């Protein structure tokens, strides 16, 4: 076999191999989320039906400083309500929480921001627990 023929034969293998390798590199990289599951527990007060409808992590960069909640106080169920949020990691360990905020609420829809302490990386938060509970007097805890 002559040299030119061998070169042509080599090229016939070599070029497709490079193309195939590039295609494999580009297409077959799987994207795996760091933490596939995130759980939000939205509390509903059993005695009044008042309930939390929204929970949102508020970030500064990638740090959670506070949690914004929206909640509905059921008609005819005004009273003192305590609100609180807690953040847990993937092992179920409490990593941050807000203080218990208590005050009088008339029926309606509310949104408020609860600061959490300490500030934690959002990537360490696997579950968010919210609490809304009517209490007789303030201060009180969830």
């Amino acid at each position, binding site marked *: 076999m002559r040299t030119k023929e061998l*070169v042509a034969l080599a090229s016939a293998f070599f070029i497709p191999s490079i193309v195939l390798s590039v295609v494999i590199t580009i297409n077959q990289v799987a994207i795996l989320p760091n933490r596939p599951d995130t759980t939000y527990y939205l509390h509903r007060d*059993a005695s009044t039906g008042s309930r939390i409808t929204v929970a949102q992590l508020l970030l500064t960069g990638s740090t959670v400083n506070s949690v914004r909640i929206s909640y509905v106080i059921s008609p005819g169920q005004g009273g003192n309500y305590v609100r609180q949020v807690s953040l847990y990691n993937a092992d179920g360990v409490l990593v941050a929480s807000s203080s218990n905020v208590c005050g009088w609420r008339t029926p309606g829809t509310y949104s408020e921001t609860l600061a959490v302490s300490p500030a934690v990386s959002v990537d360490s938060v696997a579950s968010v627990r919210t609490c809304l509970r009517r209490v007789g007097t303030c201060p009180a805890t969830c």
Partner: protein
Amino acid sequence: MLAGLRFGGQVFTIILLLFSISVAVFSTVVAVGSVSQAGGSGVVGVAKADVRVLRVQVPGTVISSVTVSASSSISGTYLVEVFVTVGACSTYGSTTSVLTSTPTSLTIPVSPICNYNNPASVRVRVTQP
């Protein structure tokens, strides 16, 4: 001299041919093979994405959908699933969406519909479809 060069060129060509064949074989093996890594299977490479589920919203007294806000450090198409448990009622919904580093809001219908008559657990799973 000339004969030596010709012989050297042939050797080079043969080496190049063997190399090319080995690359082709390796590429084929990689293409059809599988590697399990970090929970993945049947894939060659794994890129870790920081997926963030930043917001969850449910409607009023009846949970017929869940609005989720999510982002990912690696832009791409993801399967977003929601598993809702309210007392004895469990429901599920999913959608496929492109996630980027900017949070994307997704409203995902769930079926069956659950009454929001107990504390609700909303579990959001984000995976590659």
